[in-house]
Every structure is written in C-alpha cells, then in structure tokens.
C-alpha cells in the first residue's frame, strides 16, 4: 500500500498545469505540443513524397494509403484507449493472428457460417480483452506482463489451429477490401467511421473514466470511478478493435497466418506515441494516433519511392519514434519550468 501511495505522488509531480497568467493558447500549445509536431511531420513527409512522385494528391493515392494503413489503424485505435488508461496491450498481436487463422480455416463457403464466425472472432477479441482487464485490475498485476502472457497463449492457439500460413477466404469476403463508393474505397469509409466513433466516444462517461483513471488512479478512484470497470472496458475495447483489424487484414491478404499479428504489437504503440498519446496515461487521442499511423505509412512509401534498401524503414521509424518522444518530453519539461518560474 505504501508503495502505491508513493507511486501516486510520483504521478502528481509529473502532472503538468499551466501557470496562472499564461494565455489559454499557451496552455493548449504545451498540452498538444507532440500532437502538433506529429502533424507538422506528416505534412512535411507528404510534401516530400508529393514532390518525388506524380499523382500523390489524388483520391486514388488516398485509397491506397488508407488501405495499407487500415489494419494498423484499427489495432492502434484499441491501443490508444488502453494507453489513455495508463496501460499497454501486447495481446493485440495474438488476437490478430488468431483472428486471421480462424477466418481462413472456418469461414467455408456459406455466407451464414462466415457471418457466424465473424461474430465469434469479434466476441473472442472482446472476451480476451475483458479477461486482460479483469486480471490486471483484480490481481493488481502489470499490464505489460499480463498482456504478454495472453499474447503468448493466443499465438500458441493460433499455431495449433493453423501451423503454417495458409487457408483461404470466400471470394466475396475479399471484395470488401477492393470495394468503393463515391470514389472512396471501403478503407476510407472505415476511417471516416473511426473518426465519427471517436467524436462520440471521447465525450462519453466511459472515456472520461478511462482518461481520469489513466492520469491519476487515486483521485479517479476517490471521485467514484470504478477502476475495475475502466480496466475491463479499456482492454475489451482494445481486444474488439484488434479482432476488427484481423478481419480487415484477411480482406487484404486472403489467407490466415499464425504469426502475422506479432508485427503489429509494437507499431501500434509507436504510432500512438508518435501521435502524442502519453505512455503514462491520460493524455492524447485517436486523431493523434491516426496521424502517427499515416506517418509510418508515409515512411514506407518514401523508402519505396527513393528505392533504397527496405532495411532503412525500421531505422527511420526508430529514429522518428525517438525524436517524437524526445519532443514531447522536452515540451513537458518546458511546461514544468513555466510552472516553477
């Protein structure tokens, strides 16, 4: 108990408030510094990409890039909610792998079975997430460790279901990835739906509870927020989003893979952090994460256009991740200095 009180005091000192007398704008600027840096970076990357290649500013390019980014985007949306809660969800990788192998082996050819298993996969994500949240909250364990174990268990189950890449999906299923309405592909409509979801969700009591318990667990608890509920809800949302990401991924690849999800775990965290979501909880939003995901997509595009070795991609994303976090940590420090001055 003593230790947790000290932890909370640590958090209190980390809490940053603008001093009296500074303008509202300055306060906004300090709070959103890393998000604004990410936006500037994305604009810069798009500008460079646009100058290197023709036809970048077209619906076609938007459709292509959004389709490439959508799986990561869906998974990172769930990660964002968990990061706001002050946790981290590594089980996303296991849920994505298991989702794709279940889809590739169980969908068959009847639309009814496909619909049934779609429902089951989403329910699997939701339940696994809820279990994560419950274990973390009730046993007071570290999110990193608990979700690491569920990741191991789920990817083990995925390997048992389908030991190697393979399986197939009904042809109609893959049409969704290529479908478009009014010149915008299904992925762009999904992106719009995601933004609408966030516009609604960010104002809900649930989001407020998650954000509050992420920024200061103790005061959230004292204000009547149920920590168990906010944990279960945050991780259940993350699991559901990961399941949706796996379903979207199968519309793109047309196969199942028991290891494909592993490549998404850390990029989801990186995208959110680049977009200004704090790893300490409470701060950031889905719009930042979307910007972060598109920054990573743009880096991939640039590496391709410049036709340098694809091994540069991890190096560049690593450096940008570090710079983004450095920028936000410097912004935080300068805000603290203002507070003391």
């Amino acid at each position, binding site marked *: 108990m003593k230790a947790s009180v000290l932890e909370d005091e640590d958090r209190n000192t980390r809490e940053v408030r603008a001093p009296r007398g500074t303008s509202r704008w300055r306060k906004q600027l300090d709070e959103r510094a890393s998000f604004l840096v990410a936006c500037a970076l994305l604009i810069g990357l798009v500008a460079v990409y646009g100058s290197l290649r023709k036809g970048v500013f077209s619906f076609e390019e938007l459709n292509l890039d959004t389709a490439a980014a959508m799986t990561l985007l869906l998974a990172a949306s769930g990660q964002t909610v968990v990061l706001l809660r002050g946790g981290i969800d590594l089980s996303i990788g296991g849920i994505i792998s298991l989702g794709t192998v279940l889809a590739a082996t169980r969908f068959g050819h009847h639309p009814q079975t496909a619909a049934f298993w779609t429902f089951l996969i989403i329910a699997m994500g939701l339940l696994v997430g809820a279990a994560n949240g419950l274990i973390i909250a009730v*046993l007071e364990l*570290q999110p990193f460790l608990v979700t690491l174990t569920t990741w191991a268990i789920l990817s083990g189950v995925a*390997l048992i279901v389908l030991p190697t890449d393979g399986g197939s999906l009904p042809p109609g299923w893959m049409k969704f990835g290529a479908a478009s309405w009014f010149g915008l592909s299904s992925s762009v409509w999904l992106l719009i739906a995601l933004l609408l979801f966030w516009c609604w969700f960010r104002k809900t009591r649930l989001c407020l509870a998650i954000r509050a318990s992420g920024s200061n667990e103790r005061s959230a608890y004292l204000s009547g927020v149920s920590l168990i509920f906010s944990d279960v809800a945050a991780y259940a949302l993350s699991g559901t989003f990961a399941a949706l990401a796996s379903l979207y991924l199968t519309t793109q690849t047309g196969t199942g893979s028991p290891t494909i999800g592993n490549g998404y775990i850390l990029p989801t965290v990186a995208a959110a952090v680049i977009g200004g979501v704090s790893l300490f909880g409470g701060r950031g939003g889905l719009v930042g994460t979307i910007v972060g995901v598109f920054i990573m997509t743009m880096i991939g595009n640039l590496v391709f256009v410049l036709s340098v070795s694809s091994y540069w991609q991890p190096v560049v994303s690593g450096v940008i991740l570090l710079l983004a976090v450095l920028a936000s940590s410097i912004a935080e420090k300068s805000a603290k200095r203002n507070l003391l001055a």
Partner: protein
Amino acid sequence: MNALAKHRAVLFAYLVTILLLLLGGIISPGFLSVSHLRTMSLLAAFIGIVALGQTFVIIGGGIDLSVPWVLNGAAVFVSLFAHNHNQPLLWAVPVLLAAGALVGAINGVGIAVTGIPPIIMTLAVNVILQGGILLYTGGAPAAAAPRALQFLAVGRVAHVPVVLGIWTLLAIAATILLSKTTFGRYLFALGTSPTVAEYSGVPILRTIVLSYALSGFTAALVGMLLAGYSGQAYLGMGDPYLFTSIAAVAIGGTSIMGGSGHYVGTIAGAFLLTILTSLLPALNLSSGALQVLYGLAILVSVSVASTALPKLLFPRRSTG
C-alpha cells in the same frame, strides 16, 4: 510478512522446476540422463545470462527490449571479425562486449537524461540496430564461428561445460552486486520510487546507465556464445530471447514494477522455461502448445507473486 510469504514466488518457481524435471523423468527414460541434463543446463545458461542483465534493469524499474539485436549484432560481428580464425577473438570479444555495454549505456542515458520511457527507448534502439545490422550484412548470413568460440560454447573442462562455469561466476557476481554493494541498494531504491531515491541522494543517472550497460554486456556475451553453439551467426537468432529473458525474470518472482527481486529466482525461471521446452517432444506437443504453456507458466507465477492474491483468498486475515 514473513520470509516464506515474501519469497513464495521464488520457492514456487523452484518447486515447479523440480516437478517438471520429475515429470520428464517419468515420461521419457532419457530425460534425467547426464547428457540430457547437460544440454538443458547449457540452454538454460543462455537464457539465464541474458536474463541477468534484464533482472538488474527490471529491479531498477525499467525494461530492456533491445536485447534481441544487441545479441544478434554481437553474434554477427564476432563471426565477421574473426573470419574463422581464433587469433582475432582476442580483441573482437572484448571490443564487442564493450560495444554491447555501450549500447546499453546509450539506452540508460536516453532514459535518465531525456525522460523517454524505457519501453520506447529500448524498442527504438532495437529497431535501429536491427535495420543497421540488416543493412550492413545485406540480409545475408555471416561466416561460421571460429573454433575457440565453439569450444567456449559447447566445450567441457573436467566434464563440466565451460558455459556453466561462466554462468556460475556471473551468478555469484550478480548476487553480490545486488545484495552487498551500494550499487545494488541504489538500484532497489530507484525501482521502488525514483522520486524518493533522487531526494535521498541516489545517483540516478549513474545507476540507470550501469544497469542498462550490464544488460547490453550480458546480451552481447550470449550472442557470441550462441554463435559458437550453433556454429554460425544468423539473422533473427536473438528474437526468442526478448520473451524468454523477461519471462525468466517474471517467473523468478522479480516484480516487473521494480524495486524487488533476486537473481536466484531468475535462475529458476531460466531452468523452468528450458525444461518446459524440452518436455515438448516427450509429450508429443506442438510449438503452439509450448507458447500456450509459456503464457500460462508466467501468468500463474506472477499471480502467485501478486500482493493482491492473499487479500482475495483470505479477505478477513488481511491487515493491509
């Protein structure tokens, strides 16, 4: 809280290890033979040495995700530098150990000076190293490991594998470092509460940098030993060690939140993971089942160590 309850996670890890050994002995006749035990302890040593640095970092309240490619880098470069000759090892091994420690120190400086969270800092360094090594080697596997290295990894002196000797020395050093030195006490203080530690005069920067440097050092050491063990370096050889090093620490009862733990527990964790892996062929299980078992093993052992568990099981007896 009495000593038994305090160390129940460590005791649990050893108990499960012994039970798994007995189970193996019952299922397959050769499981408890000297040669099989020797092979298993070799594999446990690789996990255990990587997890040594990880234990220090985690006790200090951090985590080192850069282990895989520090390990892989050391393995690749030792083979490249040595070119099948033993002579260059005399300078290559110390240089690469120092390079591993340097990468760790960079992690530590990044975390302590700029306030970047350990997960992000070490993750980014891992990714950058991965890209750098792939660029340097062009994605092609490196040359074979020189003979002297192979002797270090699989050779024996008086029936005892050399690696086990190295591991024993390191384990003794780690235990002394953690329990008898000021550095050890600083590390526990830092892991318990960085704020309190700083106000109490703990040299934060030096302690963090040292712990991460140690982790880089042990990862580089295992990289070179593994290159000797498998006869050559290959790309991606470090990846399994990210999960197993953290798992060994967690199973060994070290709190991932920092501030508590023992290397003694991590040793049990390394053995437990290795025995679990070698039980698979005997039990006729797939690698998927291994992952499930790994996950369950960690989940159960961290739940046993959880301070909330006694409160849940015996609500009336808990007095806070």
